């Protein structure tokens, strides 16, 4: 088991954001977490990184308890997070953004990794010396993913990667997630509101509601589940 959360509780002030969440991600699989706005999806992602710190429960990564590790140490264990809203560095160039992804990576790998990323996202090679803030939303999302991959993570966590993107780019993002699994054997934990797309790429999926896991199963199972269809796919919170 690559990542295992057991009985995870987290609070934002007095708000009980996560209530006893159990979740597991195995090496090489794509796991999706769906849920409505405010269900606690992003909180779950961030609490794996220790912001906010879990108030109780345990987070194991490759068998090691990382619940109390400082945030940067958690990242150095091999977890990369693409935060919600992309959060690229707008005034820095694309190349500089990519380099910031290598905070603790071996600098001799830089060129190899850069070539790999530019092969995966050719648009970044064209935009290399451009300020990242001048990129379109979709391009910025590609940059954010590439930046996270520069650290050679074992687990890639994506928080709402399709948020606010044009349909063409949404398709592309999910295409890339598939490629990452197929070509690099990447393990992905994906948080999405776009339940339809997310469940299609997912091996397994969890549904989060008011800070609790209410449903889990394979992507296909959840896609066929009447409850999920009603709540997240046919109108409701889905797109």
């Amino acid at each position: 088991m690559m990542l295992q959360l057991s009985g995870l509780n987290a609070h934002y002030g007095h708000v009980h954001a996560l209530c006893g969440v159990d979740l597991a991600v195995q090496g090489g699989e794509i796991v999706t977490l769906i849920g409505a706005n405010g269900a606690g999806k992003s909180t779950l992602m961030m609490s794996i990184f220790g912001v906010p710190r879990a108030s109780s429960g345990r987070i194991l990564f490759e068998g090691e308890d990382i619940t109390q590790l400082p945030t940067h140490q958690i990242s150095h264990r091999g977890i990369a997070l693409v935060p919600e809203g992309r959060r690229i560095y707008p005034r820095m160039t694309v190349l500089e953004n990519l380099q910031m992804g290598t905070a603790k990576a071996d600098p001799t790998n830089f060129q190899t990794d850069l070539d790999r990323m530019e092969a995966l996202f050719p648009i970044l090679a064209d935009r290399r010396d451009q300020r990242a803030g001048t990129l379109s939303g979709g391009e910025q999302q590609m940059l954010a993913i590439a930046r996270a991959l520069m650290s050679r993570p074992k687990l890639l966590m994506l928080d709402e990667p399709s948020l606010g993107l044009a349909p063409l780019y949404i398709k592309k993002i999910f295409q890339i997630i598939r490629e990452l699994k197929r070509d690099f054997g990447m393990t992905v934990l994906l948080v999405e509101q776009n339940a339809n797309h997310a469940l299609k790429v997912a091996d397994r999926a969890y549904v989060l509601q008011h800070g609790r896991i209410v449903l889990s199963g394979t992507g296909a199972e959840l896609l066929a589940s009447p409850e999920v269809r009603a709540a997240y796919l046919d109108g409701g919170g889905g797109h």
Partner: protein
Amino acid sequence: MQAAATTHAMTLPQRLKDAFSVAFIALLLGIPMIGLTTTDEGGTALKVLTRWPALALFVAICFVGRLALQVVREALARRRARRPAKAPAQAGSSRLLTVIGWAGVGAALLVPVAFSDNRYAVDLATTVLIYVMLGWGLNVVVGLAGLLDLGYVAFYAVGAYTYALLSTQLGWSFWQALPVAGGVAAFFGVILGYPTLRLRGDYLAIVTLGFGEIIRLILVNWTSFSGGPNGISEIPRPGLFGYNFTPPGSEHSIADLLQIDYSPMQRLFFLYYLILALALLTNLFVRGMRKLPTGRAWEAVREDEIACKALGINTTHIKLAAFAIGAMLGGFAGVFFAARQGFISPESFTFSESAIILAIVVLGGMGSQMGVVLASLVLVLLPELGRDFAQYRMLLFGAAMVLIMVWRPGGILAHRAPTLVYTGPKGDQA
């Protein structure tokens, strides 16, 4: 009468109407302010006089001035529209800046030669360089790391007092005290940085402002330690390899050593070149830091702290490093200041100093090294050159600051040079 109306070409009647409305407002305002005046008739009587010709002139100036302003604005808008929309070639402006930078260093080296008999000019140039150095130091904290620091003068004071105390109490020389004072200032930087790690923007600004005042108040009130408001005097001047710029005959006189005629200007030149060297070293140091992982992360923290955490950057270390290094550079400048003045008191380290240094960084363009130099020149020289304007001096100063911000909202030089340029697959990526 908003700017939006003038971005399109106006017809003549529109222009006249616009100018008339401005003139009308000027007339309304002008009647009490210019049209009427009081004179003292002796005793308690005041007599109201009218000045209608002056008022008419004022209204006419407003009318014509408004028309002229329209024309200028339209010309500027047309020129802006003609300029190609895409960003200017970065490489070109970087190269130009490099050339200007070297020209500036050359000019700075020649200042004492050009003004060899002008004590005032060399003194003024030295002051400019102190502010350049302080600006470069604060630039690390504010410009690169994006941590708004309103109490930077505290580190300047810590450096100055450390040297003053070490030299007057323990007999340390300038060169012995310099690194120690830098270290002490850096320590104070960490003391300020640690509790403020989680603060940003206005909240951080308030805490740093308070920190600056605390240091100053300690210096004012702890009389037995710092001399209180009387400050510390007779601080030794810096020497060179154990020799001093003193009249011949005295101990270790450079004039005796080199068998040259003594002139008090020699010490001034030495101080000037000393601060020039310190400032240039500061510049090289900060430039070098920008290319190291820590320095690169400063800018990343400024841009987005959450993203930094997600990428595994230890933002605590990065911010503390920025505070410590910024403070250290301020401390070095403080040591020089104390050694140059020979006398320091808390008076020299008030909030207005912090404000001027911050203004230099902001007006120059956050993070821009060259911008700091230009802004220091403007902010230090302008009040000096403006002495002829007597009481209007500060008004002129304020107007210049407002104009710069209107003309270049991002600072005089908002250009940011990338720290990393692609050099091809086989190239060196440092």
